[in-house]
């Protein structure tokens, strides 16, 4: 293989560590497979606010505060807040940042935002520019549905390939000292478009981008799937992860039992979510609950976390554009 083909990975020498992690989910996610691992579950989707957008903002605020507390830090210890969400102009993150007296960078990578913010946060910490960086994302089913699809009360059926936007938020504090799993490398993905136009088939949109990033990780870090205790993709859903397995096999990489997908795992089958969960909160909440907690217990020692996103806009897809996907990866070790 050509050496120049992949050089998308940055390696961290100073072991930026995740010292605090907090996850918050909605009632439906609480009933799902990971219900007992989340730090906090809301009783209803309104979270005491009068609109869903305000509820979403409150979720990310709570996730940030929770993570700071779990890291045994104070608010003024946070040098940078890196966050993103799915709404137009990422209002949930920006408006949440308004309430905190800390520098803020908004990031958008659709559902890949968690890995994107973690990777960027690690770069800042590893480079010695900042001591503590908070990386967070949030998504809310009802706000996403309103923005991307149809009104909540419209009596339509969801197509069989559609995914369910998770009402969830996760926040990690990346720090230059402390205890916790460290980020050994981050791989930034390329926007990949394989000509899918169906907005209800996000898995198929994101799978090729995920394949590209995954191949880059294995090539750049000179590892193979069996070197990891867990390879977890963001939210390809059931169909998307099946496609990914096929695509990887096509490139000579066999994904084994240590591969799984957050979207596919989030809900139980009887919750009728078709292909599984999606939304940037889906992978963020599972990373910041189950995965990091298991790593702290050293049950998982090396994890490849790839968050995947479909960079769609309703305007572009109405104009007949195909849907591009992207994926970013971080390798977590303990």
């Amino acid at each position: 293989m050509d050496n120049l083909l992949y050089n998308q990975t940055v390696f961290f020498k100073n072991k930026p560590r995740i010292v605090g992690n907090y996850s918050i989910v909605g009632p439906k996610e609480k009933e799902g497979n990971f219900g007992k691992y989340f730090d906090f579950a809301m009783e209803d989707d309104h979270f005491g606010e009068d609109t869903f957008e305000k509820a979403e903002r409150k979720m990310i605020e709570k996730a940030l505060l929770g993570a700071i507390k779990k890291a045994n830090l104070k608010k003024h210890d946070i040098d940078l807040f890196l966050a993103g969400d799915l709404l137009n102009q990422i209002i949930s993150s920006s408006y949440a940042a308004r309430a905190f007296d800390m520098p803020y960078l908004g990031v958008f990578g659709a559902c890949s935002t968690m890995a994107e913010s973690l990777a960027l946060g690690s770069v800042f910490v590893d480079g010695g520019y900042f001591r503590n960086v908070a990386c967070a994302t949030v998504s809310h089913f009802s706000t996403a549905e309103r923005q991307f699809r149809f009104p909540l009360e419209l009596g339509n059926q969801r197509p069989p390939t559609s995914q369910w936007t998770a009402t969830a938020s996760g926040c990690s504090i990346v720090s230059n000292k402390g205890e916790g799993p460290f980020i050994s490398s981050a791989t930034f993905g390329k926007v990949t478009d394989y000509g899918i136009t169906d907005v209800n088939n996000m898995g198929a949109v994101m799978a090729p981008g995920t394949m590209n990033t995954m191949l880059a990780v294995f090539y750049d870090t000179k590892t193979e799937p069996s070197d990891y205790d867990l390879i977890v993709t963001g939210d390809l859903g059931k169909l998307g992860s099946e496609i990914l397995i096929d695509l990887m096999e096509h490139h000579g990489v066999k994904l084994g039992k240590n591969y799984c997908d957050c979207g596919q795992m989030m809900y139980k089958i009887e919750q009728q979510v078709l292909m599984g969960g999606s939304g940037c909160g889906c992978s963020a909440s599972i990373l910041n609950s189950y995965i990091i907690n298991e790593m702290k217990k050293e049950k998982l020692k090396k994890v490849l976390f790839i968050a995947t996103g479909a960079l769609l806009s309703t305007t572009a897809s109405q104009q007949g554009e195909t849907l591009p996907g992207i994926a970013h990866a971080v390798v977590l070790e303990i």
Partner: protein
Amino acid sequence: MHYRKRNEMYNQYVNGKIPKTSEWPSLFNSFWVGGLICIIGQGINDIILELMPTLAEQTAWAYTLIILIFIGSFLTGIGVYDRIGKFAGGGSIVPITGFSNSITSPALDFRSEGIVFGMCVKMFSIAGPVIVIGFVASTLVGLLYLII
């Protein structure tokens, strides 16, 4: 253009990969729910004519439709119509109650953005095309009848 070729192949592959479910159960559900809504409409119409036998047929239908629109709108408001819709699909979209649902649901949703620019502007975000196309096509037919 090997990209185009690749994309074509990928699309073909994905289409083959999409799980195929039988359409008969959903067709059956939309059949009986749709039929039931029509029976309810017929029942309302019969009752109206029973109560007011002097009413012209056309007027009785107008009242019937208004009552059905009320029911559809109310069920949307209390959050029931979307569940019927999930079960019945076309069975609850095609009847006039579905038209009513498609007006009430965005109105409810965008109430949070204000009455004028939220609710009133978005009210026809789904049903708008129905009214536009209906007006255009019917007026053209009316004008056509004038010529011939």
